[in-house]
């Protein structure tokens, strides 16, 4: 009969326990969806910098904010990170593991500036099938991932400017990708105070 609904287990969806969710997602499905996201935003902006900065990064920011909430509850038992190294290793291991299935390749502190840290990856999952045409210059779809990192850091109380860069490696055909994190002044001052 049309209109007869199934008897729900819980009357209110908010009462249902948070499930672990499906652990596996089709890579092809994600690749096509991401490709469509990039293509759609390309039609909406006037120049490449805007595409990278305001569109892809902002899309990632929303993902990062939600990721932080979910992972704090699931993985860390609602403990809050207050130290810089703590939140960085959280991003480098936990967030990467949940989103991309593996921890990031490396986490380094910048040598030139005190407030710079870098997460490096041989090839970002989002860039796996993407070849950037020559005329787009230094555009990197990894800006989406940079947005995710910025979302996590911002909402955890560590405001930062996060960007994605290609770093050519000698002896390798494809350049490595580095997510550069530049923390705001207040974060460093707070960190110095806490000791």
């Amino acid at each position, binding site marked *: 009969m049309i209109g007869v609904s199934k008897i729900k287990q819980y009357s209110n969806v908010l009462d249902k326990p948070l499930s672990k969710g499906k652990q596996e997602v089709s890579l*092809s499905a994600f*690749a*096509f969806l*991401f*490709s*469509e*996201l*990039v*293509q759609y935003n*390309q039609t909406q902006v006037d120049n490449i910098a805007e595409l990278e900065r305001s569109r892809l990064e902002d899309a990632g920011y929303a993902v990062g904010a939600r990721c932080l909430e979910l992972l704090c509850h699931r993985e860390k038992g609602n403990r809050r990170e207050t130290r810089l190294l703590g939140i960085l290793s959280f991003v480098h291991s936990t967030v990467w593991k949940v989103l991309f299935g593996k921890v990031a390749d490396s986490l380094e502190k910048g040598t030139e500036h005190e407030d710079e840290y870098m997460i490096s990856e041989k090839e970002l999952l989002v860039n796996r*099938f*993407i*070849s*950037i*045409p020559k005329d*787009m210059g230094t555009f990197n*779809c990894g800006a989406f991932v940079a947005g995710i990192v910025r979302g996590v850091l911002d909402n955890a109380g560590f405001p930062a400017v996060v960007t994605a860069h290609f770093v050519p490696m000698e002896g390798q*055909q*494809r350049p490595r990708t580095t997510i550069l994190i530049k923390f705001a002044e207040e974060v460093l001052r707070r960190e110095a105070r806490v000791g």
Partner: protein
Amino acid sequence: MAAIYSLYIINKSGGLIFYKDYGSAGRMDTNDTLRVASLWHSMHAISQQLSPVLGCAGIELLEADNFDLHCFQSLTGTKFFVVCEPGTLHMENLLKYIYELYTDYVLKNPFYEMEMPIRCELFDINLSQAVQKDRVALLGR
């Protein structure tokens, strides 16, 4: 180990979207490659009509004195064909593998426009890896 002379990919309407030659035997200039592509597209279509057997999907193999031509047509009408030395083995598997590379590195690329010439670095890199002589032998499992 027999050699591949050249690889062509043509879109639904018969336009050449990718051409690669391996070795000087099959080398042609751009205009000739475009002609061969549209020629093959038409022949493929005509053969479907001429076939005495019902349900023919088009020419799969053309054998000549100096070369063989293997063709693979996807469900969407994109044709992949390779010109090789007579008697080269495992070409069907190679064409299917190239189709997989196409779906991965060309179709999932947001900067690729459908039916346009393929200019994807990753596709080129993986294709050259696949066509190396020892890899072709491995495809015949």
